């Protein structure tokens, strides 16, 4: 596996309308529909982020779609193993464009605590399989960390950040 093995042709348009693009990006960023791709422990924190205390719905992003055809954000929460990897790439390819990927948790970023000498089943990092937009570290990351990841993704799509970044006070 590797970045060289992944082929995805994206045809962008030859004509771009600037103002329309800006409005479309605003619309896309404020209504991200994640796909339910909870694999392991981080899935529970993703579910907790969508529930009443840390509400994902205020960012428009809590409408979890089981089918990749209707989703545009894939939150990879959990370890991707070599047995799961072909399925994972198939699901990514079945999502329509434009699509984004958040790698949530240490296992999705670089294999996590399961990398040791002689390991045979864990993919060391999801970015060996698909292009990743935002990395959210933690094992598992708190729901607030996932919310910060979604805000960063919105900033990446629209260019402007919704809430100011909190300053570290200590």
């Amino acid at each position, binding site marked *: 596996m590797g970045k060289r093995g992944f082929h995805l042709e994206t045809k962008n348009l030859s004509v771009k309308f600037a103002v329309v693009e800006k409005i479309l990006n605003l619309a896309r960023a404020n209504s991200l529909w994640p796909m339910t791709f909870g*694999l392991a422990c981080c899935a529970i*924190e993703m579910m*907790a982020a969508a*529930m*009443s205390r840390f509400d994902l719905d205020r960012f428009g992003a809590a409408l979890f779609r*089981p089918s990749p055809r209707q989703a545009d954000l894939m939150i990879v929460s959990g370890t991707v193993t*070599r*047995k799961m990897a072909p399925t994972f790439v198939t699901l990514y390819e079945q999502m329509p464009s434009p699509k984004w990927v958040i790698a949530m948790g240490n296992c999705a970023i670089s294999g996590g605590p399961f990398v040791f000498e002689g390991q045979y*089943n864990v993919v060391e990092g999801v970015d060996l399989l698909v292009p990743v937009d935002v990395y959210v570290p933690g*094992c598992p990351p708190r729901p607030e960390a996932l919310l910060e990841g979604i805000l960063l993704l919105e900033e990446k799509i629209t260019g402007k950040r919704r809430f100011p970044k909190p300053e570290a006070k200590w």
Partner: protein
Amino acid sequence: MVNTIREKIKAKIGDVEVTEVSYTEKGYHLSISAIKRNLLPLVHFFDEHLFYLEDICCVDYVEYLELVYFFNNYQSLCRMKVTLQIEPEHPQAPTISHIYDGAFWYEREIHEFFGVVFENHPNMAYLFLHDGIEFYPLRKKMVLVSDEDKRLLNSFKVEVEEDTFSVNMGPQHPSTHGVLRLVLKMDGEYIESAQPVLGYLHRMHEKMAENRGYLQFLPNPGRMDYLGAMAFNLGYVTTVEKLCGIPVPERAEFVRVIAVELNRISSHLLWIGAFLADLGAFTPFLYVFDDRENILDVLESITGSRLTYCYFRFGGLYNDINESFIEMTKAFLKRMWGRFNIYENLITKNVIFINRTKNIGTIDQDRARKYGISGPVVRSARQPYDIRKVEPYAAYKELDFDIPSGEQGDNFDRYMVRIREMEISLRIIEQAIDKMPEGPFRTEKVPKKLKPPKGDVYHTVETPRGELGVYIVSDESDTPYRMRWRVPSFSNLIIFPHLARGTLMADAVSILGSLDLVIPEIDR
């Protein structure tokens, strides 16, 4: 009971060696070493005397491979360890899956991890691993997979028949509670056969245990079952303490009980949310997470983590509890007692819920015994078997609680058993807070690099899903020689293909939900 069994074995099957060992040191009563020719009569003997199959595992001592079978009894505690030595090149052993149906998958797992071929086993295809792993992972020396074994392992084929079609309830599915793949052969809306394919989250915990020291392996049990992480942690820590003979102060025992029971409540709450989401109800999910956040606040104040706890250390706890923890726990208890009313009005008295769960997925007692089922699933089948009562550990000896059991063994009974277990957990926590003594929270002078004595030990705890068994074989070094995790969801899942045969697809989804599986602990 142990002595009578010993006499009967000696009388019936002549040439086995039966040694009695100390239960408090080893965790089992009798150690029986069998040879290939008298394994099947021995297993028939256990079947007649109503023993259930607890675990089958394999240990690779380089000159020979040893198959270890554990049998136990629901009615009176009597754990038997049967060992069978086989040769390391082209290892072969007789199968017991025609006597105990649960052995079907244990033997498949041993085949793909160690290369042991079981004669007359109906299906030796890949269970956890996949094509592309060229060696047997858990052998000590690198042994390559032979070509005829590769043909056996890749022999899973989906037959295309005329009136039925095969559908994947795949790894990415909102109702399979993790990455479980079910290959369903459907006849219209009815399921003819359901075959689970596991291993999509196989994270090599058992191999990691052989490469890490005892203290370095502590974070791993929490990742195996992330919803009941305290109980898994407790199982590991108690087994190592049993192996090395480390004493635990009383205050630590009581705090361990409080932490495990709080975790049990939060795990059952999440199960209610997920089970009802499978049936189509989304509201209980929100209520349940609200209660859960309260528990997570309480546990976060002493452990620091929300989900995958690593709070216990060998000889006690990581740090002591303080007054604010006791106050927060008492406030939580008061709040939780008032919440059961909501769940009763919303769910238990709901006509739709009752119609969808009564008389679905009925398990009878003899089937439960052959598959080795434990936990709320076996308690709902009229078998009140709870490790906290039968083999008490931590401070459960001094606490007074009863065990709920169901009448029929259907989905509704499993739901009621779990609700009652939550109430019982609240009572246990109240008693533990009252009885907690002052004192140290950790034994001093536990070395960082443990040097346990040579030998093996087996210990069980009761997790929210059932009976967890940890079997450690040590060779006096500071890493375990072999660590085997007998997880409850694995044996609970084996019964699913039998239960789902002939049901509607929606009912099969609800049966799968009611068994309360957590897939990472199955895949280890």
